[in-house]
């Protein structure tokens, strides 16, 4: 089965992606099963492909022989970690997560063991407030060049003039449609939800994630993606409860179902949309014209990181444009670094999934910190899921 599942996915990053698929967005790691089964440990140990310029910082400190990073599924070129190991001797253990809430929960509980992690823009102020992350020592990040970063996406990494996190890439949250199954052209969240109850009955997926599922339901009525207003949330809940019986699944693990043809339409992040479209051209990526989410993922180092030197070394390594460009080619999310953009092939820079038209980007909103900790939205999500 796994063999046939890999068919048509020729290149090695894809194979890695497939491995991760099984673990995937949340359902497993959320339950901490990854650690228990050893499944979540995608330790890169095999390759010996050198040739990326050595970074002087490596020599200065003892980096140990292993470190662990918490990140998102399908988000890195596995070769990156293999090369890093070849250069520094540090094996990188990759922990894959399904939501920012889950990462926060692990860090709040303590002893996460991560020396680097990938939080999304709206969570950083909370991490700082809770004292979970500390300011980055920029002297150790020689490869980072703030002047080359697109300032539209970097603001939330800096709090009161101090840099707590440096950006990885940005992206949007739209939806993916299998246009062979659902031929009607769609361009709005209203159409997404209405189709889910009509032609897309039993074939539509929404995220198992309060921010996007509630946010995009709010968009049906044109409310703010981040709304905390009682009456607006009540309307969104009404819609969600109405749609619930028509859904195929409530899961952030949508790539396998879309690839297998079980699901025809799903809420979707840029990078997944790009990967799906690349492998299955009839799967289109749509941004709702009412708006929705725009996001930036950052790198940050937890205060209790067990191997800070390696965390910094890997972060600096990832900030090297020559390394970063491979990351972007593998995960498909748009870069923030002008030096990386200069290295990306033209067809990537011209891909409308990655770089949507300006008028589609305009109504998008960054997630708001308050949604992360709001008990009202959490309870709404629980009522939706248990309905």
């Amino acid at each position, binding site marked *: 089965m796994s063999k046939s599942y890999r068919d048509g996915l020729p290149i090695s990053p894809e194979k890695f992606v497939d491995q991760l698929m099984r673990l995937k967005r949340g359902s497993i790691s959320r339950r901490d099963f990854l650690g228990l089964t050893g*499944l979540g440990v995608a330790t890169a140990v095999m390759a010996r492909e050198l040739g990326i310029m050595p970074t002087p910082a490596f020599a200065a400190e003892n980096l140990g022989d292993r470190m662990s990073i918490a990140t998102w599924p399908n988000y890195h070129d596995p070769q990156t970690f293999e090369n890093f190991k070849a250069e520094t001797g540090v094996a990188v253990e990759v922990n894959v997560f399904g939501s920012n809430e889950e990462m926060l929960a692990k860090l709040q509980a303590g002893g996460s063991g991560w020396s680097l992690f990938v939080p999304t823009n709206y969570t950083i102020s909370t991490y700082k407030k809770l004292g979970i992350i500390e300011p980055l020592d920029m002297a150790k990040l020689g490869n980072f060049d703030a002047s080359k970063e697109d300032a539209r996406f970097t603001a939330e990494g800096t709090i009161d003039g101090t840099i707590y996190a440096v950006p990885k890439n940005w992206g949007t949250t739209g939806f993916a449609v299998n246009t062979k199954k659902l031929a009607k052209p769609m361009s709005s969240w209203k159409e997404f939800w209405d189709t889910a109850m009509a032609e897309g009955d039993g074939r539509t997926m929404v995220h198992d994630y309060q921010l996007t599922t509630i946010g995009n339901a709010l968009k049906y009525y044109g409310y703010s993606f981040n709304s905390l207003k009682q009456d607006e949330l009540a309307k969104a809940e009404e819609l969600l409860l109405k749609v619930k019986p028509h859904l195929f699944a409530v899961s952030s693990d949508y790539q396998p179902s879309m690839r297998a043809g079980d699901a025809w339409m799903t809420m979707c992040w840029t990078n997944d949309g790009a990967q799906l479209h690349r492998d299955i051209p009839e799967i289109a990526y749509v941004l709702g014209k009412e708006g929705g989410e725009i996001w930036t993922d950052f790198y940050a180092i937890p205060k209790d990181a067990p191997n800070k030197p390696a965390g910094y070394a890997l972060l600096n390594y990832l900030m090297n444009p020559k390394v970063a460009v491979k990351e972007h080619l593998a995960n498909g999310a748009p870069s923030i670094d002008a030096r990386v953009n200069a290295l990306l092939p033209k067809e990537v820079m011209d891909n409308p999934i990655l770089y949507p038209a300006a008028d589609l980007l305009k109504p998008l909103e960054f997630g708001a910190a308050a949604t992360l900790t709001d008990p009202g939205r959490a309870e709404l999500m*629980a009522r939706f899921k248990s309905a």
Partner: protein
Amino acid sequence: MSGPDHKSDPGNATGGQLPAGSEAAFSMRGTLLRKNLMTALLLAPATLWLVVFLVLPFVAIAIFSVGERAPEGGYQAAFTLAQYANLPARATAFWNTMVLAPVGAFACLLVAYPVAYYLALRAPERWRLILLALVVIPFWTSLLMRTYAWMYVLGGRGIPALLAYVGIEDVRLINTPGAVLLGIVYGYLPLMILPIYVSLERLDRRLLEASADLGATPLSTFFGVTLRLSLPGVMTGFSLVMILLLGEYLIPTLLGGGKVFFIGNALVDLFLQSRNWPFGSAIAITLVLVSVVVLIAANRISARLSGARRVDLI
């Protein structure tokens, strides 16, 4: 050694036979002391284990459950019963679980009983061990892996693709209640088969002959003798599976597409998504109490059904 002799031993040892204060009495006391010490030492690891991994976490959860959620999530100290008062907010999840657990366990029983019956009473002697091993071997693989395998078997490229070959299009199996039930029966089957097998294997076959001699049909022999005598095994399997199902979250998530929400799923979300530890703890405590009640009830029923014989469920 016969009973009465044995009983009189302690009396003789400490009193009549030996003069008071003799060395033998001392040495006897010493032996007793050594015996007690030995018992204590032997029990110590298990006790320590239970205290560290069962009692202390339980106490921690009990303390959390009367606390409050911190503004950014987690726990902050308080003394309130608000979390318990809030339990109805997860009533649907409790209800779903209360339906799933017995239905799932019963479905498991229906599949397991014939298998156990065959293994214990019908299977050729030399095959029995191999067949039993075949029942147990899948258990060596993680439930997670096996459930993931079902995701692909039931998914669009699995059975539905085969059905499409013979002209039955667009069949959806994955993410249905049926898929969840299938996953449960598959996942927990060995836990049901083994206790039933054990109780059937001990069955005195002369009783079956007697039943037949007295004119009972095979069917009434089965219900009147075989089934009745295997009830302790049935109840053991039933309560084992049912108690595990009370905390199940993996199978509904993977095979039910996250649309089926059990109390286990509620717990996971409360700890890992909304980070409401106190409420999660209150639910956990409630779930433990419910499990205990289920266990006691199953024990009682089982005792009554099997003619007041003592029954060990676990």
